[in-house]
């Protein structure tokens, strides 16, 4: 099992990469909206992604179950 420091040493850069990919997706969507002159007819997936990030941004989680919370959250979308 990894120590707290080892956990960050091992996975920080991958998490950084994954967050940058999410940021790039949101930028890509905004650029597409600008080009098209309006948003997608159904923005529910975008809304779900933003809500998921709010879950992650909460500092206080009584137990380490963010993944479970997000899976339940994403199940709102078919």
């Amino acid at each position: 099992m990894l120590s707290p420091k080892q956990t960050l040493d091992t996975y920080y850069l991958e998490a950084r990469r994954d967050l940058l990919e999410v940021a790039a997706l949101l930028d890509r969507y905004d650029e597409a909206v600008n080009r098209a002159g309006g948003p997608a007819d159904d923005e529910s997936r975008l809304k779900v992604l933003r809500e998921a990030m709010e879950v992650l941004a909460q500092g206080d989680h009584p137990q380490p179950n963010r993944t479970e919370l997000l899976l339940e959250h994403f199940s709102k979308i078919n």
Partner: protein
Amino acid sequence: MQIIQPHYHAIARTAQDYERMAMSGVVAVCEPAFWAGFDRRHPETFIDYFAQISEFEPTRAAEFGIRHFCWVAVNPKEAENTELTQEVLRQMPEFLGKPNCLGVGETGLHKSTQNEIAALEAHVELAMKHDQLVLIHTPHLSDKAHGTKTVLEVLAGMDVNPDKIWIDHVEEQTIEWVLDAGYWAGMTLYPVTKCSPRRAVDILEKYSTERLLVNSSADWGPSDPFTLQECIVDFRKRGHSLQEAVEIFHNNPCRFLGQNPKWDIKPIQISES
């Protein structure tokens, strides 16, 4: 589709990579001199290394029908050894004359120390004196923005031709500075630590592609030569034509590298009929 890998550290990769690249349309790779993972202590080690990438490696690539070109330099991580740097710089002109050597690189900055800056200036001066192309490495991660700004400040104080300078490893926060200053900009696609294939396509869609180069990552660390093909597939998936892809992933390297007459691969036009 014919593809050029403009920044490829072949000595750290296998023959199988060459074989798979050939199968995926790669026609040429360009190998800048880089850090070996440890600091070399002797100028002679660099000289042997330069011989390896200018004499031996082209024969390995040729077995798979791939052209191999190289660049020579002391990389910024080893520039702290000023004595070694000076001696290697003294011997570099011999290698600039090799038939596959395209110029001076990759020089640049890592931690942006005074010794690194002095070495960068010396490399650029040597390149300009010998009318060579220059490939400049910019730092990774948290040092990226500061290091890139410093590279641009150093170049602004020198008598250089921006057409002949390629500043590499740009990302979203640095690309505009490089393009606005008139240099060529390179994106390097890593699995984790630098730009990703999809982010590179976003950048290609946002900026004028006239002076943009796209590299895969191919070295001894976690890297993947096929991030370039991944980028091409994503570019095509977004509806860009084959010719648009050829312009970026084949013709742009030809236009930049073709400023050196040793680069004899010409831009190509895909027939639409």
